């Protein structure tokens, strides 16, 4: 039937093809549109995500502070003539200063409301100032003290002033006072150093990520010290020395599977082996680091093997031909050439470890810990776990701090990944 020398057969074919063209073009456009939409979904989500975090979290890097003319009143601080650093009523000092600005506030209830504008951190600050400089006693100074979290939220616009009074945590009177203070230039915003110097706290304006950061740092140290040498050694053995046997196949399958085991299962392992069996302390960065090393080991081994594989065999042959032993070939020639790839893999493994939280919940790193850990066995938490803890808090001010902590975490991850990219680019060799 398809006698091509017959022109009518060709034109019949052409007619059929052209008849379907419009429909096929439409389908093509739809398909392409779906593809574009799908790609956009992921990227759009990323944008919304980053926008939300920045919109919520950026303001946490600034803290609202009240400028008060503080009188270090001898009668209040040292009624017996002696300053008792442990029991003196430091909180009263900033309160009195604030009250002095609003002389018409007299009733007990109102005064209590007024006091609530100041963070409890103000008392500690006064104490610290006196410890540093005892001669301040009896003097008057203009001091900036942190405002309470609700004031902070109101000033930053996270609390809607138009809302019904019963529905917002700040009363109408408090709003008036704050506005009066603002009008007098007594309310300022400054960089929130507490966020980076404090440990966790129940008070949002006091809560910082330093404890969590140090916890994460200690854990990553343990992880890198264990996982990098072990991972590299395992990769060297598997690539350069292991005989191709059932055993090495088993190890290979096993490593690939371990890389895909849910991280929480590693947490169960850590709980059962390190804490219950080896009796290592709970909540310690040491245990967290051990668990995270097991978790990142497969990542490092896989990356290191790939790096070793990319070293051309000609180099090994050349060294062997000169009479080097296999071990010398590996340590003198293969390892230095594969090192950038191994480092890149390790950094990526570390960034995965830094973001990991589920296994840490299992080994008790979710405790509320105020102190900044000072060693590998001190109770600690980690940055992602701190985010998890703060995200659970109902206060609006904690939501802001959670976003800020996330931004810090993402910043660290970004830096690590950039470092990996740079190492790869810098030390990349073309064979």
């Amino acid at each position: 039937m398809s006698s091509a020398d017959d022109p009518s057969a060709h034109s019949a074919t052409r007619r059929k093809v052209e008849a379907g063209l419009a429909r096929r073009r439409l389908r093509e456009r739809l398909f392409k549109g779906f593809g574009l939409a799908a790609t956009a979904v992921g990227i759009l989500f990323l944008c919304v995500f980053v926008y939300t975090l920045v919109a919520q979290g950026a303001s946490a890097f600034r803290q609202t502070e009240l400028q008060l003319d503080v009188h270090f009143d001898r009668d209040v601080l040292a009624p017996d003539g002696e300053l008792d650093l442990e029991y003196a009523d430091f909180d009263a000092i900033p309160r009195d200063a604030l009250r002095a600005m609003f002389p018409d506030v007299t009733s007990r209830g109102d005064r209590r409301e007024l006091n609530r504008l100041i963070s409890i951190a103000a008392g500690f600050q006064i104490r610290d100032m006196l410890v540093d400089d005892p001669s301040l006693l009896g003097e008057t100074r203009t001091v900036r003290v942190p405002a309470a979290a609700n004031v902070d939220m109101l000033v930053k616009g996270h609390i809607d002033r138009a809302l019904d009074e019963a529905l917002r945590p700040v009363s109408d009177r408090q709003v008036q006072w704050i506005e009066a203070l603002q009008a007098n230039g007594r309310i300022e915003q400054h960089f929130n150093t507490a966020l980076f110097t404090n440990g966790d706290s129940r008070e949002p304006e006091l809560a910082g990520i330093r404890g969590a950061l140090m916890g994460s740092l200690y854990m990553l140290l343990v992880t890198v010290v264990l996982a990098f040498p072990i991972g590299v050694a395992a990769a060297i053995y598997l690539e350069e020395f292991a005989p191709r046997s059932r055993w090495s196949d088993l190890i290979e399958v096993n490593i690939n599977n371990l890389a895909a085991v849910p991280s929480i299962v590693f947490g169960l392992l850590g709980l059962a082996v390190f804490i219950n069996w080896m009796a290592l302390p709970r909540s310690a960065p040491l245990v967290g680091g051990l668990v995270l090393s097991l978790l990142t080991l497969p990542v490092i081994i896989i990356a290191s093997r790939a790096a070793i594989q990319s070293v051309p065999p000609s180099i090994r042959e050349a060294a062997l031909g000169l009479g080097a032993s296999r071990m010398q070939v590996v340590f003198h020639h293969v390892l230095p050439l594969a090192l950038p790839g191994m480092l890149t893999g390790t950094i990526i493994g570390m960034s995965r470890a830094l973001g990991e939280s589920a296994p840490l919940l299992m080994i008790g790193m979710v405790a509320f810990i105020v102190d900044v850990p000072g060693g590998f066995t001190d109770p600690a938490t980690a940055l992602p776990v701190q985010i998890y803890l703060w995200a659970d808090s109902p206060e609006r001010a904690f939501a802001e701090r959670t976003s800020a902590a996330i931004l810090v975490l993402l910043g660290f991850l970004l830096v690590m990944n950039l470092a990996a990219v740079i190492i790869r680019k810098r030390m990349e060799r073309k064979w």
Partner: protein
Amino acid sequence: MQNTTLILLLAGMAAAAFYLGRSRSLALVGGVSNSAMLHSLPGYYGYFTAVWCLLPALAVMLVWVLAEPRVVIALVVDGLAESQKNLSAGELNLLVNNIRNLAAGDAVSGSVDASLQAAADRYNALVGVSRWMLAGLVLGIATLGALSAWRRIRPDLRARNRVERVIEYLLIAASSIAILTTIGIVLSVLFEALRFFQKVPFTEFLFGLNWSPQTAIRADQVGSSGSFGAVPLFAGTLLITVIAMCVAVPVGLMTAIYLAEYSSNRVRAIAKPLLEILAGIPTVVYGFFAALTVAPWVRRTGEALGIEVASESALAAGLVMGIMIIPLVSSLSDDAIHAVPSSMRDGALGLGSTRSETMTRVILPAALPGIVGGILLAVSRAIGETMIVVMAAGLAANLTANPFEAVTTVTVQIVTLLVGDQEFDSAKTLAAFALGLVLFVMTLCLNVVGLSVVRKYREQYE
């Protein structure tokens, strides 16, 4: 003596041993000029001595450090009064904890009496003795090891081969850690799960429809075992996984197709790293986003449409989890699509296919095994995902297929059961390990099948 000090001392001794070994080898042949008479380079004799100095000592130290807490506790308990020794395991555990805390100078629950203080002092004394014994033993072994190696140095000693053999064993040990990890996971989970199944029948756990582990807190409560039916958890996990896959598979696959077939190089160069960023965001961040942004949004939208949505709906958790998995699906699909030889594409285009026809009729069918393998891995990832569901899905063990209701998952329950105060013997705690076992087995099967499908598929076109 602190362990760190001990390790530093050992390192110093090893350095000294290296130097001694090296110089002895040179002395035996009469100086550097004759070093060719040695079997190996002089440095290898140094390493040989250092290895003998270090390794046995470190091995002993490791065993000692692992065994020390147990032995010390056993000795302390042995020294307690008869009445205290006969306490139940749980109470004894608490007592030991108190002693330990007191010894470390930490806060102690309950009052401190003289006997407790005595036990704590005894504990501290034992630990001190143990440390000194350890230091003496380790340093002695190190000296002996170095000495014996040093004496064995002869010009014909095959030092390099010996050292290399040791290094090879170390490499083997490193590579077997991966195996040990798997064995550790299996044993720890299996062991505790078996203890759980002694308390709660296996069939009841697997097929029971009611999950409320909280009732088991009080040990005197008979019948508390009736509430460990895990089916609602499996159903909840399945529901959230299905929702996540409904998002991730079409979006991830279409993204891979678009980037492979339609996008220009410039778009690809921008879109791929952005998707990688999406893959690198920690899950706790997704969880925060799911709980604070997506869940309220889903709820408001549902209300606007007249649907009743729980504040911790399966839908919100599933949606966010789906987005988290998009990069995984798209990168594995991308691999699969690129593994199909370009001659297939040319052949289809040469016959007059449109690009979409080429893709759907030739390339995707050819890439299907790889894509399916990738999807299996993605499912495994979804099942094992913890933080998103902990933060955005609820604790309510509802047996439902309605995505607007709150459900709970296996991972959520593991976290809830194990976070906070726990007794290690209670059915509640052990249940977490039973759930862990189920989780491990499920994901292991998916991973093994998924990985082997992906690998076989790759080989097919190589």
